[in-house]
C-alpha cells in the first residue's frame, strides 16, 4: 500500500465544517450528509470538506486535538513514555497534514502546530527505528505494535516485514535440511547406490 493510499483512507474521517451555502441532505454512497445551512456546523468526510474548502464554500473546524496546547501535551507524553502512546486519531498525521495543506487559514497558529507535529512525528519515528532494529536483531517471531498509526506502519513496510521474512527463511532452510538429512539415512542403504 502506498503513502497516497493511506492518505486516501484518512480522507474518510469525519470533520466539522461551517458552510456558506444552503443545501438539503446530500445522499452519498458513503452516507447521508447535511442538511447544510449557511453558518451552521455540519459533519462531512474530510475529502468532501477539502473539496468544498478549495471552492471557498466552507470553513473547516479543526478537530479538537489540532491545537498547540493539546499537541504539546501529546509531545510531552510521547517523549517521556518508552512505548508508543495512543494518538487522538488513527489517521492523526494524515488528517493534520491534509488540513494544514488545504485549510491552514482555518487553523489558528498553523505555523506553530506544524513544528510540534514534526517533533511528535520525529520522536515516534526514532522509536520505530529503534524497535525495528531491536526486533530484527533478536530475530523476533512476532511483535505487538499497538498504537502505531497506519502511516507509521506504512513507513516501515516493506523493510520490516521483508527483513523478518528473510530471517525466517534463513531459519527455515536449516530445519528443512534437518528433515532431509533424517530421511536421507534410509536412502543411503538403497540399492541404487
Amino acid at each position, binding site marked *: 500500500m502506498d503513502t*497516497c493510499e493511506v*492518505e*486516501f483512507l484518512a480522507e474518510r474521517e469525519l470533520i466539522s465544517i461551517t458552510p456558506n451555502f444552503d443545501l438539503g441532505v446530500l445522499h452519498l454512497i458513503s452516507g447521508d450528509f447535511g442538511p447544510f445551512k449557511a453558518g451552521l456546523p455540519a459533519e462531512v468526510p474530510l475529502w468532501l470538506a477539502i473539496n468544498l474548502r478549495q471552492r471557498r464554500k466552507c470553513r473547516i473546524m479543526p478537530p479538537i486535538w489540532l491545537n498547540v496546547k493539546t499537541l504539546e501535551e501529546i509531545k510531552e507524553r510521547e517523549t517521556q513514555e518508552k512505548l508508543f502512546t495512543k494518538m487522538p486519531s488513527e489517521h492523526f498525521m494524515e488528517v493534520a497534514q491534509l488540513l494544514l495543506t488545504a485549510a491552514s487559514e482555518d487553523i489558528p497558529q498553523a505555523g506553530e502546530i506544524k513544528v510540534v507535529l514534526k517533533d511528535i512525528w520525529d520522536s515516534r519515528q526514532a522509536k520505530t527505528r529503534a524497535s525495528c532494529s531491536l526486533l530484527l536483531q533478536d530475530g523476533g517471531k512476532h511483535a505487538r505494535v499497538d498504537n502505531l498509526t497506519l*502511516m507509521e506502519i506504512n513507513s516501515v513496510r516493506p523493510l520490516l*516485514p521483508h527483513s523478518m521474512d*528473510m530471517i525466517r527463511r534463513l531459519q527455515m*532452510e536449516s530445519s528443512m535440511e534437518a528433515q532431509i*538429512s533424517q530421511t536421507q539415512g534410509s536412502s543411503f542403504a538403497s540399492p541404487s*547406490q
Partner: protein
Amino acid sequence: MKLNPSYEPNYFSLEDICATNSAVPCRVEMMIPNLGEMDRGSHSEHLETGRRLELPLWMAFNLVKRHLVKADCSKAYSQSAREILKAEPAVVDLMKQEPFYYESGVHVASLLEPEEANDLRKVLQNTFQTRSKDVISLSQAELSKEVIVREQLLSKEEKTLMLESRVKWAEVEHWLSGKLTSRELAAVSVSNYLKRKRPRDDAE
C-alpha cells in the same frame, strides 16, 4: 507492478539462478569418464578420482548427492571468513565475498557435513540480524561519501531491502513536506524511455 511480495526463490527467479551459479571447490571421489574437458589442469580424458576443481553450485548439488564429488567451503564461507563474521559482522564487504551472500550461503550449507553446515547457517542468520540495523540506518541516511562506501558493503539481498526502504522513506518525506501528495506520474519505464529519447529530439 504494484504488488511487491517478499522474495522467495522459485524455478524462474533470476536471483536464485545467480545464487546457484557461484563456484565451490570440489574433490572428485569417483572417476567420471569422458568429462576430462571440465578439468583444465589435467590432460586426462576422464575426470579422475582425487582431482580438485571448482564447480558451480547447481552442478555440485547433483554430484554431491550421488557421492561423486565432495564439496568444500569456498573462501567466502570458510572457517576464517566465519570467524571474522562472528567477531565483526558489520564491516565485512559481503558483496565482494559473494553477491548473493545469504542465498548462496544457504545453498553451500546444504553441501557440507552437518556440523559445519549448522555453524554456517548460524553465522548467516546472526550476520543478517546484526547488519539489519545498518540496512535501516542506511536507508534513511542522507547521501554522502560515507554512506556510499557503507552501501557497497551490503550483499544483494541487503541492498534490495535497503533500496525498497529508501524509496518508501523518500515517499513519506515528500508527503510530509506537503507538496507532492497524490501526484500523477509517468510510468518509470516510460520516463526512462523518454529520457533516452528526448535529448535527441531536442537536437534535431
